[in-house]
């Protein structure tokens, strides 16, 4: 790897490890110090390596510098007098560990513990994602701002407030106990899934950034599966689901950067490798006796990776949606369920069910009704696509609805009305 690319690459992989270990060491009260030391380490690397070239083992070099900076910080000034020294004086049994432990085990443990500390219910979900991106994923403030379609000031404020709150509540950077862990894991998984969804569904034009968000979410989830206390069925189910979704990443956007609907995707661009990974984790998830919403969503996502339009596929998806809606209703799930119902039980029944949904402010509701009425009642189909068009926000969505209406009018031989 060329030297110019090396530092940004290392920043992404090593910054978070160093910060995690430092944060664990110093606690949330000194989280800024931890971030400063980590940042300074990279600054030193940038200065040093541009003169001397990159060292043979760059990561080890970074760790050494970080250790020394941490040591200097601890030995300097009031921190030493008021916080550290009294502990050494009073602590005659335990030897004071002045050195930063950057062993693989501690790096791994620190990051996991940070994950639980950051994904804590006392701070807002957006703040959890923001902090995760910053501290766990090594994203820059600008990148985070772009991901959220926000600006640097807002993001900085959000992260600042979140750290304040974590300090106030004295949140410790540690593994929750065995009785708490499943509960706390809920919040962690929600954050990871939100992070993934940001990347998968966001309207940001930056394709690389969006893919990175998905990959980071999957990386964090993978870490959880690699540690025994968190290697639980629902964690594997979530990872499986993310693999299934991401298998279509390359097919979802066309050359013009527009969203390609599922039914119109070039299935040769679906990644069989990612689907296979999804299946692997799906099997791992099939243990224990609790069925989480992630299991159901993973099942649905699995069927979405099967291109053949079989009765089996849609019947299975229908039943999975039936159960998903019972434990976790969402308008999206309701609409998708109705589509599966149309495929499994027929359009007539689906139309009746769809009309009951009454999601009047939802463009996709009218788009679905338009689809369902197509081939059954042309006027109603056009009427619904028109309603969808009026609610559509993006140019791509508007064009899609217009195309549907044009298609219907063309087939009947009528003049194209605006």
């Amino acid at each position: 790897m060329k030297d110019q690319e090396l530092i940004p690459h290392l920043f992404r992989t090593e910054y978070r490890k160093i910060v995690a270990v430092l944060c664990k060491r110093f606690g949330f009260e000194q989280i800024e110090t931890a971030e400063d030391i980590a940042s300074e380490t990279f600054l030193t690397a940038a200065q040093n390596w541009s003169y001397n070239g990159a060292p043979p083992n760059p990561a080890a070099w970074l760790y050494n510098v970080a250790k020394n900076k941490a040591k200097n910080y601890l030995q300097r000034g009031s921190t030493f007098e008021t916080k550290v020294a009294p502990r050494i004086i009073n602590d005659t049994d335990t030897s004071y560990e002045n050195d930063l432990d950057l062993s693989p085990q501690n790096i791994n443990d620190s990051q996991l513990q940070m994950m639980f500390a950051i994904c804590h219910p006392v701070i807002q979900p957006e703040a959890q994602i923001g902090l995760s991106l910053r501290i766990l994923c090594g994203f820059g403030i600008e990148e985070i701002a772009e991901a959220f379609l926000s600006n640097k000031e807002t993001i900085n404020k959000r992260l600042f407030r979140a750290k304040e709150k974590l300090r106030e509540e004295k949140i410790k950077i540690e593994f929750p106990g065995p009785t708490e862990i499943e509960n706390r894991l809920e919040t962690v998984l929600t954050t990871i899934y939100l992070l993934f969804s940001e990347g998968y569904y966001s309207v940001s034009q930056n394709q690389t950034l969006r893919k990175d968000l998905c990959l980071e979410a999957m990386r964090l989830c993978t870490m959880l599966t690699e540690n025994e206390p968190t290697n639980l069925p629902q964690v594997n189910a979530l990872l499986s689901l993310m693999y299934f979704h991401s298998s279509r990443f390359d097919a979802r956007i066309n050359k013009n950067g527009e969203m390609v609907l599922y039914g119109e995707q070039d299935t040769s661009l679906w990644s069989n490798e990612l689907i296979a990974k999804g299946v692997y984790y799906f099997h791992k998830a099939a243990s224990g006796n609790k069925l989480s919403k992630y299991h159901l969503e993973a099942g649905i996502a699995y069927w979405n990776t099967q291109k053949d339009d079989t009765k089996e596929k849609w019947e299975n998806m229908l039943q999975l949606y039936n159960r998903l809606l019972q434990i976790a209703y969402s308008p999206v799930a309701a609409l998708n369920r109705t589509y599966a119902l149309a495929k499994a039980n027929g359009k007539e029944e689906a139309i009746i069910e769809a009309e009951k949904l009454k999601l009047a402010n939802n463009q996709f509701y009218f788009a679905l009704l338009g689809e369902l009425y197509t081939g059954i009642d042309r006027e109603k189909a056009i009427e619904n696509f028109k309603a969808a068009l009026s609610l559509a926000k993006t140019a791509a969505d508007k064009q899609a609805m217009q195309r549907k209406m044009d298609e219907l009018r063309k087939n009947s031989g009528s003049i194209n009305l605006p």
Partner: protein
Amino acid sequence: MDEYALIMRHEDGSKIASPEQMEIWMKATMDWIGGIAAQNKFVSGTGLLFDDAKVVHHDKMVTNGPFGEIKETIGGLIVVKADSVEEAAEFAKGCPVLGGEGNTMEVRKIARRHDAQ
């Protein structure tokens, strides 16, 4: 919005139907519940099994049934959200249990805590 219990009263399906028919009823029931859940009106639900069931009488005698009239046996219940008992009854109309003559759906409002004096 209030919560209503929709109580299914019917005889033991396994006594009158083949496994294939039972499967068809299962799908119909799941689709019916899914339809209510899709409207965001589903709260909870459970089947009540006919096997391993007992009746305890006023003299503390424990027997294996019968559970009242055969077609009045409770087979399960779901709880839905509705603005009126009429709306709840509309939901009940969709239950496949009603395909059998003599079967019924009982619709009862769930008592809210502050209703209890």
